[in-house]
């Protein structure tokens, strides 16, 4: 059977399972209308192919041919001891944990005290959340193929609402485990995060597969950052090589707000990060950073968009990549500056190192500028580590492997510098050391 045929089959399976999904949902609600519309949109668009400019360098053919189970049956028990290592466990955090797309109250630590850190499924159905769902649910998400597919099946995920002037005292972890006990599994988490005026929140997100079966996660996260609010978001991607992830994140910012997203891609089969920022006020700051270190046949694609709509805003992008073996990396960054968005300061940086002859990097840093009084620049490099620096260190008795690792760590450090949670920084540092195969703490 050809890949196309398999893809069609998966599409049909998804379309027909919608009926079962619909059963048991309130079909007279607004949310139902949104879902039905999204399903029609997906039916029309189908899965993305390499013919689309946005998917030129990433083919999903190899993962879409699996026969995924869409609604995993029973809740599978997971022992805390087995999964503890996937948490940032050395600090107190709120936790919203899902296993195979279902909420795990055992592993979670939620709250309704002065804020809501809970489940989207209850927010979508309970009347007390109605106004917020009406205002924010599916408001900033794009109508593209995979986002539409997620919207059609949107049901479960994290719902985080931080009211005015609240500073959340500890970080929130959102973790999706997949057990895929029986066979290949597809899950579609949907997160909604609303940070009201003057609030502050830090979120850590992780997708983790606990099986050798193929996993496909098609996640959508919508984040609203109101006036003066600040949101720090950390995505840790260090999954098994049979787990693929399409992560769609849409962020809408109001005036004088700050939002940063750090993406650490160290593992997985095919990882595609669609990160979109929409600036809807003045004096907004958006920060997009990422470190990618992959090997084997892994593929990581960072597809970013920053849409500057209002004047006097800033955006900073900094993506570093290290590619070994037969891995492929893609960076497609797009900055749009509308003609009203005068005095924009947009900066985009993408640096890559290839450490194997078989590795590939495709970069497409893109600027579309319609305003004249702006400072926009981008830089993109592909190169090697500084041989002289390496020699200098070897001369002073640092073995080549460690010297190499130190250089790579220094290369990625511009991204790590802005991580505000020390424990996360430490975790990432350890992961980098692990990836580079050295046992040093980098605390030099």
């Amino acid at each position, binding site marked *: 059977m050809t890949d196309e045929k398999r893809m069609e089959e998966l599409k049909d399976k998804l379309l027909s399972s919608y009926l079962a999904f619909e059963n048991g949902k309130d079909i007279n609600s607004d949310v139902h209308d949104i879902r039905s519309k999204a399903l029609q949109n997906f039916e029309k668009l189908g899965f993305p192919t390499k013919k689309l*400019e946005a998917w030129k360098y990433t083919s999903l053919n190899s993962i879409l041919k699996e026969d995924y189970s869409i609604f995993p049956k029973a809740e599978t028990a997971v022992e805390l001891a087995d999964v503890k290592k996937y948490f940032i466990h050395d600090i107190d955090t709120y936790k919203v944990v899902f296993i195979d797309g279902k909420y795990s109250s055992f592993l979670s630590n939620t709250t309704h005290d002065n804020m809501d850190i809970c489940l989207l499924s209850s927010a979508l159905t309970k009347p007390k959340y109605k106004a917020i769902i009406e205002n924010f649910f599916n408001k900033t998400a794009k109508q593209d193929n995979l986002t539409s597919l997620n919207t059609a099946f949107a049901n479960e995920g994290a719902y985080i609402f931080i009211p005015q002037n609240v500073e959340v005292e500890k970080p929130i972890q959102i973790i999706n485990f997949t057990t895929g006990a029986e066979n290949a599994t597809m899950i579609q988490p949907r997160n909604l995060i609303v940070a009201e005026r003057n609030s502050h929140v830090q979120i850590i997100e992780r997708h983790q597969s606990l099986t050798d079966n193929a996993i496909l996660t098609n996640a959508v996260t919508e984040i609203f950052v109101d006036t003066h609010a600040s949101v720090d978001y950390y995505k840790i991607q260090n999954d098994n090589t049979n787990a693929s992830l399409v992560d769609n994140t849409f962020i809408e910012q109001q005036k004088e707000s700050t939002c940063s997203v750090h993406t650490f891609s160290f593992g997985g089969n095919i990882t595609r990060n669609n990160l979109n920022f929409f600036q809807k006020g003045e004096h907004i700051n958006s920060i997009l950073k990422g470190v990618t270190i992959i090997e084997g046949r892994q593929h990581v694609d960072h597809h970013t968009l920053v849409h500057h709509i209002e004047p006097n805003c800033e955006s900073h992008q900094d993506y570093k990549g290290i590619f070994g073996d037969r891995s492929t990396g893609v960076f497609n960054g797009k900055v749009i500056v509308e*003609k009203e968005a*005068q005095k924009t300061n947009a900066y985009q940086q993408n640096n*890559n190192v*290839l*450490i*194997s*002859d*078989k*590795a*590939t*990097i*495709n*970069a*497409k*840093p*893109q*600027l*579309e*500028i*319609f*305003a*004249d*009084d*702006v*400072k*926009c*620049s*981008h*830089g*993109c*490099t*592909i*190169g*090697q580590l500084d041989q002289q620096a390496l020699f200098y260190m070897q001369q002073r008795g640092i073995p080549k492997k460690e010297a190499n690792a130190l250089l790579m760590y220094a290369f990625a450090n511009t991204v790590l510098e802005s991580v505000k949670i020390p424990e996360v920084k430490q975790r990432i540092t350890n992961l980098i050391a692990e990836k580079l195969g050295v046992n040093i703490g980098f605390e030099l």
Partner: protein
Amino acid sequence: MSKYTEDDLREELKTKEYEYGFYTDIESEKFPKGLNEDIVRAISKKKNEPEWMTEWRLEAFRVWQQMEEPEWANVTYAKPNFQDISYYSAPKKKPKLNSLDEVDPEMLATFEKLGISLEEQKRLANVAVDIVMDSVSVATTFKETLAEKGIIFMPISEAIQEYPELVKKYIGSVVPTTDNFYAALNSAVFSDGSFCYIPKGVRCPMELSTYFRINEGGTGQFERTLVIADEGSYVSYLEGCTAPQRDENQLHAAVVELIALDDAEIKYSTVQNWFPGDSKGKGGVFNFVTKRGICETNAKISWTQVETGSAVTWKYPSCILKGNNSVGEFYSIAVTNNFQQADTGTKMIHLGKNTKSTIISKGISAGKSQNSYRGLVQIGSRAENARNFSQCDSLLMGNECGAHTFPYIETKNKSAQVEHEATTSKIGEDQLFYCNQRGIDTEKAIALIVNGFSKEVLNKLPMEFAVEAQKLLEISLEGSVG
């Protein structure tokens, strides 16, 4: 060449409308509008071409019929109706030329208006000019001087007759007939163009240049240029063009192929000034050009272009760096004003070891225009130690225009070093203030700043062109900043 002073500039700037927009009435022989196999055959027959050439054209035509017009470029325009174009027009009185006296006096007057005085050029600029007027060459100078060195420089239609083996070997070798929609169309119906062959080890003693003009209303111009630099040779080739003002959209789909054999060097410079349409965006030339060169071992190809004209430009002069140690360069200034749209850039395909490429692109957008840089740098898996440096700078004037960059970087070799940087800025108020303070008025200050912005590219142009290009930049941006 007399010195160009600021007073001259002031005079120039008063001329708001397109200054070269005039129309010469020369009785021309024209084919009926439309395109089919018979027309392709007729063009071939008209040119008295050998059988293989006719077949080659027909094959291209058949391929073209299967193709669709590309839509990926960042431009919007009313698509030309390819059946509403006359594919051949030639000045009727085709003179056999030995001296300038034999040229149609009306045509000579046209050249004078354009500022191409043949006598002047012969005497002062030391430039041999192969003038293409409505697809058929009518004047060739310095032929004898070139012949002494063994350099062949003639209309491609003549080269097909006289050097069929060379043409047959190289035509379509860099830009195959199947390459793209417009290249296929050009291959099927090209009327004429220039052919140039530099023999082994010869350094061409003068700049070779061709002036293109679109003349007859409703005639698409399909030029075909083939430049072959044999081992160890060098040639600098200039191409420049102006077109008459006209209401109707005119299509220009040229193909340029450069072949630099081992150790050869080709420098190809263009000043493009097709009619851009009037200040309301009406009319103007569509310029869909395929330009590509191939470098063998140690060879070098350098593209320099100054783009100020055309309503729509779609042009990517490229280098295939096939041989080891070969070098590709691209220097470009693209100016768009009013409703102009330009989607231009380059492709550098690194295949050989130790290959190097440099891309310097300067985009200047004013009025309601859209200016895009689209480039590809590709490092093949066998291209050890390949090196690329790209720089794309955009200058915006006013907030109704747009500047876009679409760089594609594809690397499959770990020893590659690729750098790309792009900036977008406007003319600083402090810069203008500084000039005003010193008695330089705003208009002139802008000209000064734009020239400074473009200097890196202007410097790469041969002397004769650099002066002309500088004037063109100033005229193109006239009245764009209030």
